């Protein structure tokens, strides 16, 4: 505790290359780069913390399932409902399944799952690791001969990275079910014909690009949450800040990635 408060006193006296804010920004980028580098180094070195990874998978996957399912269902239903008038204007209400499946499978399922997970899992990681950091639990783990980075950070990032595609599959399914219920209650479309026309406009690469996006988003949420938490400072205030930054940071990056990935994947078409 003493040392951290001292740290901030000292940084105030440091000479800056440009200004405190801008220097800090570049320092953050460098630290983040180091952090990701360390993640890969430790993720691929034995021993693997299987038990903790499974535990984190439970936390970030299973515990988030209900939330993303409800959100996915609502999104599917509402999107279908809202799209109907404009399609009906062209007498093309029979196109609803294709339209909805394109929207849900290509974009909404990954994006919504990622945003929900950023809010739930990212903030949780930021807050949990942050409080462990400021109450010296991370140091305690280190002196009890456990690598805290590997145990806490690597397991969390791996868990969210690999649970995201699974969650996206669930969200997609539930979202399509929501859309189906709405279409069925309005157009009396049968389950089979709904899914036949829904899949008509979907291709394999759409599904795999969605899963790839999910992996990227998961990794982003994990890195943002753990980075903010692992380097939290200044007591309880720092914990709140870490949780907040984890969410803001990961949501922002998710949108940037969405843009980039869509651009890159479209160039392969």
């Amino acid at each position, binding site marked *: 505790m003493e040392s951290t408060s001292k740290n901030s*006193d000292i940084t105030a*006296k440091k000479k800056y290359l440009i200004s405190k804010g801008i220097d800090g920004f570049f320092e953050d980028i460098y630290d983040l780069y180091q952090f990701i580098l360390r993640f890969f180094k430790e993720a691929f070195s034995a021993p693997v913390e299987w038990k903790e990874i499974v535990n984190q998978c439970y936390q970030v996957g299973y515990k988030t399932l209900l939330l993303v399912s409800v959100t996915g269902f609502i999104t599917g239903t509402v999107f279908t409902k809202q799209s109907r008038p404009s399609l009906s204007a062209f007498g093309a209400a029979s196109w609803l399944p294709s339209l909805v499946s394109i929207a849900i499978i290509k974009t909404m399922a990954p994006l919504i799952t990622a945003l929900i997970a950023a809010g739930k899992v990212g903030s949780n990681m930021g807050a*949990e690791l942050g409080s462990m950091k400021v109450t010296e639990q991370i140091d305690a783990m280190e002196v009890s*001969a456990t*690598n805290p980075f590997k145990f806490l950070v690597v397991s969390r990032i791996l868990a969210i990275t690999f649970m995201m595609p699974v969650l996206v599959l669930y969200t997609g399914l539930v979202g399509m079910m929501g859309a189906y219920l709405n279409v069925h209650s309005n157009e009396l479309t049968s389950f089979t014909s709904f899914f036949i026309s829904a899949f008509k406009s979907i291709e394999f690469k759409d599904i795999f690009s969605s899963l790839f996006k999910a992996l990227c988003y998961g990794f982003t949420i994990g890195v943002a949450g753990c980075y903010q938490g692992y380097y939290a400072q200044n007591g309880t205030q720092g914990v709140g800040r870490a949780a907040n930054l984890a969410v803001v940071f990961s949501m922002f990056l998710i949108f940037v990635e969405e843009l980039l990935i869509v651009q890159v994947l479209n160039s392969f078409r």
Partner: protein
Amino acid sequence: MDKKDTQIDTQETVISIKDLKKSFGPLNVLNGVNLEIKKGENVAVLGRSGTGKSVLIKIISGLLKPDSGLVKVFGQEVDKISEKELQELRLKIGFSFQNSALYDSMSVRENLKFPLVRNKRDLNDKEVNEAIESVLNDVGLPQTINQMPSELSGGQKKRIGIARTLILKPEIMLYDEPTSGLDPITCIELNNLILKVQKEYRTSSIIITHDLTCAKITGNKVAILNEGKFLKIGGFEEVFSSHDTYIKTFYDYNFTENNKIYER
């Protein structure tokens, strides 16, 4: 509990620090620290808040790297050895944190189990449970085994924190402010615990404190840290017979009723 019972092996040095320097930016926290700790010896390090007492033990446990100087634990330089060797070494060092640093998300049992199962993987469940129960008995809190850290009092947390390090049977104990923020009765219990650990686990210890009573009872030696250096190291009586104002002020606060240190 008489500290004369403890056996200090004056032949064997466990921790040896020579001209240790550590600074954070322009601030020199440690500026040439020299210290030797023999096997079975307790050294109480006294000093004001912010004089780098915690930094000293964090360097010994390898949490911080020194800028210069020599830090040897069991003959190994903690800042030079590999990560793997450091992990091996850390198994012999117990670290009791100022805020106990219990894992919030785990119960007392899981807290104690964590270092044990992660470092001694060949133990079966029965052996693990026996170890947990015996160490809890040692710190006098067998009833808390299924409680969460948030349900414990400050003193209980400190003792569970110590128990968590004792479960690995360390040879060196590093106590960071073991009595800070505790009531006098709990302080006495903790001081007794430190002595008990010294005797039963045959540990050498560094006790970081600014509580003179604690230093007097638990320390075979007392070292006063000021401005990054030890002003004096030696027996309690010897150190506090000094006329240095810094040392006198320390002593006066704890042991003199009527004094001139207050501006009233």
